[in-house]
């Protein structure tokens, strides 16, 4: 795992993409997201996640609903909106495109 400062902007740029991916799979709450990213190079923390999710909600990419949890207070479960799905599809395509370019240049 590289913590090189040079790679920081890349990780930053890709975090939103990964959130879309994680949220697209299932209804999730923040602790799920953190758990999925933990141990990867995209490991992140509440302090970063909540502001970002709030921004994505304002951009109408994600939405949330309150759900009672068995043990504690109700939790916010996030899911993708229609716009969020479109954006994820576009990002997936774009990502594939980038990878193709990189591989082509390696030859």
């Amino acid at each position: 795992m590289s913590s090189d400062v040079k790679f920081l902007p890349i990780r930053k740029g890709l975090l939103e993409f990964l959130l879309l991916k994680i949220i697209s799979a299932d209804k999730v709450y923040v602790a799920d997201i953190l758990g999925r990213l933990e141990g990867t190079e995209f490991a992140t923390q509440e302090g970063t996640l909540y502001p970002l999710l709030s921004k994505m909600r304002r951009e109408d990419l994600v939405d949330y609903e309150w759900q009672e949890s068995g043990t504690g207070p109700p939790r916010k479960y996030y899911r993708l909106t229609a716009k969020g799905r479109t954006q994820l599809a576009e990002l997936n395509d774009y990502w594939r495109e980038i990878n193709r370019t990189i591989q082509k240049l390696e030859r």
Partner: protein
Amino acid sequence: MNKVTTVNLNGRAYQVEELAYEALRAYLDEATRLLADDPDCKEIMADLEQAIGDKGSRCLGSGKNVLGETDMKRILGEMGPVETGAEATGAAPAAGADSAPRETSGPKRLYLVKEGEMIAGVCNGLAAYFGVDPTLVRLVFVVLLFLSGGLLAIAYLVLMFVVPTAKTAEERAAARGLPFNAQELVEQAKHHYADLKDSHQRWRDRRRHRKERAFWRASEKRAREEPQSRPFEQPQPGYGARVAAGIVLPLISVISAVLTVASIFAGVSLLTTGGFLGWYPPLDVPPWAALLAVIAVYALLAAPLRAVRNASYEALGPRRGWFVFWDGVLWLALVILAWWIAAHYLPGVGEFFRHLFHDLR
């Protein structure tokens, strides 16, 4: 025992210790400041509070219903710094990094302070910590050193090894401004040990390096200039300045040791006989005032000596470590020697300490 405060985190009450409360307050204030421009500031703050509360609940359980400072620091470390959605939507450093929240209030910590130190800066650091004159701490230290029969020297060595050196401006500020906990002590000891191994390695490398260099110098005269051999070192001061510093430093040490011992004599003599060297303070001056006067005179005389000493250290350049160390040892040795002579040949002094020992027992 610590005072406990109740806080409301997004509608639920938690009991936290005072220091934990301060850390939490600092974190939330900083978050509010950073999120001031965010249209969803309120909601995010509620989410953050909720998350902190959830983590807190997991710490608590049967037999524990108060969150301590360590708990809170860990929780806030897990939360990570708040990053605004606008520009920095960053991935945090890998999980488990020591990303405790920035401490805005600057807790007070014990550090070795290397500005104007005698040996390792322990007394200097203690003085900074308690906000008193280093000279006073040294005097007390020397007195206690004798009363403890030298045991305090071990304490000094331990502190020297265990307490970190204030290197940055922030640390120097912290040296003046929470005591450090046991875990940190252990960490520091490990760290210093690693440093010691490291510097030993460097020393060996340097020796090898020097031998190689001597060889090349012999074979190639131009090597004397060595323009690019040490690109990262600070510029060395002039040779003359270094020689002067080498002569001045031991002299200063002798003078300051004599001054220290003379002051202690004066103090002891004032307390035991009511005067010293045939001079007696006016009758209406209480002994403690005379003692304070002696300390004041000592501080007054020691200040210029300290200034010259520091200037000499400066002149020695970056490789002054050993010099400073031996200079400190010389000073301590002179003080001990003078003390021994005094205790054995001046009846008043010996008596005074026997009394003191007796009283302490």
